[in-house]
């Protein structure tokens, strides 16, 4: 009985210690940074979209958006490769995660990190540690929405 109590006490003390050690992000500056960087990334996306429509005026709007996202994904993947995106991420927090560039980063980053475990078990498997759940949830939710629309 004493042993259990002791263990409980120790766990509580450890939880307190962990709480104290977690780096506290200052709320206001980080909110501002995420707003700024997120807004800039969206503006870059808008710029790419405008350029595509300028060069290919006949392109359908949806294809133009698809190309825009692909260009952004390319840029983010490259920046992750050369290690710049992580630096942006440290500064911007949510501003670098929420845009589609964050999705791209979440695929490239673990692939790069686990490269040493081999191409199949390193790159190909670890690629989906974050993107996997995103795709699974997205597909399941959108299928359910599609089914609902079958009946209305």
């Amino acid at each position, binding site marked *: 009985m004493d042993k259990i109590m002791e263990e409980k006490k120790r766990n509580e003390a450890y939880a307190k210690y962990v709480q104290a050690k977690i780096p506290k992000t200052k709320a206001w500056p*980080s909110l501002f940074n*995420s707003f700024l960087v997120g807004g800039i990334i969206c503006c870059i996306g808008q710029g790419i979209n405008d350029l595509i429509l300028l060069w290919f005026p006949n392109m359908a709007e949806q294809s133009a958006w698809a190309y825009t996202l692909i260009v952004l994904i390319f840029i983010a993947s490259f920046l992750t490769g050369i290690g710049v995106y992580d630096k942006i991420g440290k500064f911007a927090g949510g*501003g670098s995660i929420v845009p*589609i560039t964050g999705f791209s980063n979440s695929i*490239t980053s673990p692939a*790069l990190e686990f490269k040493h475990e081999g191409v199949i078990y390193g790159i190909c498997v670890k*690629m989906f540690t974050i993107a996997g759940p995103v795709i699974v949830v*997205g597909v399941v939710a*959108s299928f359910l929405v*599609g089914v609902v629309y079958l009946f209305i």
Partner: protein
Amino acid sequence: MYYLWVFLIGGFICMLGQVLIIYTNITSARILVTFVIIGVLLQAFGIFDPISEFARAGINVPIIGFGASLAKGAISGAQSKGLLGAFTGGLEATAGGIAAAIFFAFVFSLIFKSKTKS
């Protein structure tokens, strides 16, 4: 002038993500999943397109746009091809982005070395 809207709305959505990080210590996978679901729901209730009209990249570039186009594909698939369309539509609409993300991640992870280990 619409760049101002793009900046304000895009920035605001990203700031919501940061709010989640600060107050719930949420991981980035959960943030992405949350915003994808928000996008699916916005599209399901037909709210996404009116916002997209003036927000443009401000809502299409955040991962909400990814969720919305998943749902949009599934809805239009269901309406044109029935149940099969509900299965195929979502991934069909987003295949470009997913394939690009996988392809570039594969190529760049072969080319570059991890910076965190050095």
